[in-house]
Every structure is written in structure tokens, then in C-alpha cells.
């Protein structure tokens, strides 16, 4: 079903907006073509007979990689905040946000 893997210019514009990317008209055309080629490659996999093959969730054949619940040293706050564009009351100062987090 090659039709499943097409991508439209509107799709690219939508994803760009979600990623807060400002793309020119020429860039929209370019990325529609490039992303279409990437999806076309995935279509090659869809052409294979994969009945009975479980989906791969990770490239590494590992499970249960865990660490003990033991505290480790943190960064020094002065060092952390010096990297911030703006600081107030030992917190990162950011522009006001309309609405709450999703």
C-alpha cells in the first residue's frame, strides 16, 4: 500500500508549526520532497512479508536496565543559573505563558 506513505505539503507545514519552525515556501517544497523520500524508504519495509514478526521496540536486545535508588551529587546552582538568559529569585525567568502546560 504505497499510498499510506505519502506526505503532503500541508503535513510538513503542520509539523513545522508544532516544532516551532518557520519555513519559507521554497523550504516547504524542499522538505515535502525529502520527507517523502524517507517515507518511501519505509515503504520498502512494508513490502516485506512480516506476518508473525514482533515489532522492534529498540535497536538493542536489552531489557530491565536499572539503577539503584541512590542519590548522586547535583550541579552547583550558581553554575546552573549562570547559563540562563534571565534569572530571578534563584529561578529561571521566562516570558509569561498563556494557558497551562498540556
Amino acid at each position: 500500500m504505497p499510498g499510506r506513505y505519502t506526505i503532503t505539503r500541508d503535513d510538513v507545514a503542520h509539523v513545522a508549526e508544532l516544532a516551532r519552525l518557520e519555513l519559507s515556501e521554497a523550504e516547504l517544497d524542499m522538505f515535502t520532497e525529502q520527507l517523502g523520500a524517507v517515507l518511501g524508504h519505509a515503504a520498502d519495509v512494508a513490502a516485506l512479508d512480516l506476518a508473525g514478526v514482533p515489532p522492534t521496540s529498540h535497536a538493542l536486545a536489552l531489557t530491565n536496565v536499572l539503577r539503584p535508588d541512590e542519590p548522586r551529587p547535583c550541579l552547583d546552582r550558581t553554575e546552573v543559573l549562570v547559563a540562563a538568559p534571565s534569572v530571578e529569585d534563584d529561578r529561571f525567568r521566562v516570558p509569561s505563558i498563556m494557558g497551562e502546560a498540556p
Partner: protein
Amino acid sequence: MAATDLPAGWEMVVGLEVHCELKTATKLFCGCPNVFGDEPNTNVCPVCLGLPGSLPVLNQQAVELAMAIGTALGCEIRPSTFHRKNYFYPDMPKDYQISQYDEPINVDGHLELPDGSVVGIVRAHLEEDTGKTTHAGGTGRIHGSDHSLVDYNRSGVPLVEIVSAPDIRSATQARAYAAELRAVLVATGASDGRMEEGSMRVDANVSVRRSPDDPLGTRCEIKNLNSLRSLARAVEYEARRQVELLEAGERVVQQTRHWDEDAGRTIALRSKEEATDYRYFLEPDLVPVVPDAQWVTAVADTLGMLPAARRRRLEELLTTDGAGTGDTPGGGAAPTPAQLDQIATVVDLGLDDLVVETVAAGVAAPLVLARSANEAATDPDLARKLDPVAFAGLLGMEASGSLSATQVKAVLSELLHTGGDPAAIAASKGFEAMAEDDLVSTVAGLVADHPDEWARYRDGDDKLAGFFTGLVMKATQGKANGKAVAAELRRLRG
């Protein structure tokens, strides 16, 4: 509970999403301390600040607490994976939250409420918390603030999100569900259950419909519910708001709404984005968690008795101790509604072991339960350390009539603080049982002083017994035993 019914012909449908911060020593994916109330931005590292090149490593204890919650809720514990949920918000420095998506660790459970109703649990999955944003300047509220301040101490703290099925049908039931879930979370050791500190946060999905046979109506999600009281009020308000819209011929718009506790209403925040806009994809830096049967069993073995079982234990204790005083539907003496409330109180405060051990030391269960729920419960921290043998000794003196109820309360107050021998404390307070002769002469004197009241009592007006008992208590400064006074009054009446 203030909840009332919706107008006739309407039904509310509620599902709750509860976020529970896990009581681990460190965060979900890094070794920063998981502590509430520390100085801002002191418990942070490259992982929880989202600095480039940092890599998450999963906390074993967080996984095991999530499994404990799943076990307590009767869930199936499954192999699970982590996804990235992508969005931009300053409290989320990586610009994505690591959460479990289509393969959560716990699915298909249920929670039984004290009234016997059962609410389904769809899933209980692991995810990381965000940083804490304070809206500053302007009015101090979200709207009207001119900038925000972010503290990342909470960023990466482990959460379990527990999603109920839309099985809840009233504000009262919503509150009971949240209260029971909190008790279960505390009992598993996963959470301290402190809603006021945000360690348990509740969002409510509310819709209404005409009939249980109708499809689900359009729902609104209510946020900012910081107490069980807020939850009940907000659910009630929101369901009524939707009914009024629909009865006016308008429609409900799916949206997120913010509960304003002071104004007592919900306010629209923003239209809800499509779930696909989060562009979930598998977190490439974490591998699957696959609990085997041995691991699941080991975690289950660490679980103590859950609140429902602890309540049942006390109900059975009352019934078998032969002293229940309520209805007798099954032949045995069932606990009264007041006793069921007392049971809920002692279980909630963790005094149930005290009750069981004190009854085992030879005191009737109803008296132990009442004194535990009403008197000992005034200082639960001390009451949990109370020696059951000393408590039994004290209540034994009340049961035998050596001490009045008033005197028992005074002795208990001291016993809680100092411990020791209740008989010695009673003696030190001058609480000695009135000699029978003294009681007889006191009652006789008061009867002689109040001939009119005595005549009415003698003619069958039993309310006057309370009048005379009150006089005796006053005359003896509470030393008389109420039961002995009543017996003496009955004896004199003949």
C-alpha cells in the same frame, strides 16, 4: 459532602486521572534527590535539566513502586516501554516528557470503594514530573502575569498516572474514589498522599447524558483540584454547567477547564490539542521493562494489608466480638453506621492495629473502637505508639465502672503523652471509684431536693433520668459512674 443530584433526567459520567509522586530517594531517570521544599534549582543535573548529551537511566525503586500500585489495584503487570511526548513548555526543559504510552506497565485493574461500588482502572503508568512554574508580576495568576519563574527541582520526579474508567456517577463517588485511592497509595508505601503539597494531583473528565443507554457526551477536563473538597465541588459544578448548556439548546465544547476554588466555578483555559500533536515516539535512550513472574511476586510480597481488608478486619472483629448493635441482616450483629464511620477513621489514621491488639487484651470491641476513633484519634501520632496493654487496662476500668467516661478521657490524655500505668495515673488525679454507699446517698439527697422531677420520672418520663444523672455528675465532679447512677435511679423507682 455537599454533593447533590443533577436535575431529574440527567446522569453525570466522570473519570479521574490521578498523578501520584512516588516516594523514592531519587528522581526517575537521574540520581538527583526527590525532596519537596528544597531551595529552588538545587536538586538538578544535566539529565533533569535536559542538557545535550545527557542520558536517562531508570530508577529500579520507581519501577517497583509502580508495580506495587498495580498489584494493589488488581492490575495486570505487563512488559512496558517509554515514549517521548513532545511539546514546548518552559517547565519541560527537554521539550518532551518521557512517559509510557501504548505499552503501560499496569492495565485493567479496579478499586472497590467503602460503599461497595467498584471503579475500573484502565491503566497506571510511569512518567516523569515537570518543573514548577510560578507566575509572577501582574495579578500573580496565569492571566495577567508578565513573566514566569521556573524551578527544576521537581523536573524528573517519578510519577504514576492512574486513569480510571468513566465509571463514576456522582460527585460523592468521585470524592470517595480519590480518598480510597489515596489510602491505597499510602498503604503501598508509594506515596505520602499529600494533596496540599501536590504529591497527589487529580484531574476530572466530566460529561453528562440523558440516559445510561446513551453514548458518552462531550467531556471537559477539569484541572487544579487541590483537595478532595475541591474535587467534589468542581465535578458538581461542571456537570450542572453542562446540563444547563444542553437544556438551553447549546452544546458542550471539549476543552480543558481550570477550577477556581474562590469563585466556585470552572473557567475555560484553551482548546484541547489533538493527541497526535504530541508526536509520541519510542524513547531511544531507554530499553523495555519486562517484569517476570518472580519479580512481580517479590513486589507483591512486600505489600501489607490494604485499607479495604483492614476495614473488613475491624467489621468482623465487631461482629464476632458479639457486641455489634446495628441491624442484623445476616443474623449476626452488624456494625452500626456510626461504628462504620469509626472504623473508617481508625483505618485512615493507622490505629487499626491498636484496636485489634487492645481487643485481644480483653476489652469489648465497641468500647475500644469508640475510644480509639473519638479520643485516641485526637493525637494519632501518639496513639499509634500507645501500648495496647495499658490502653486495655484503662478501658477495662471504664467497662467495670471503676472510672467514669470523663475520667477515662483525662487519664488517656496523659497516658498518650507519658505512657505508664493507667491505674497509677488515675490515682494521681484522685480518680477513685465512688464507694457505692456514697453514690446511694448522693442520689437519694438529689431526689429529695427535686420532688417534682422525681415524680415525673417515677410516672414513666425516662428523659428525667438524664436530668438526675447530670445532677449527680455535677455534685461528684464527674467521678460517678453513669451506668451505676442509672441503675440506682431504676432501683429507687422500683
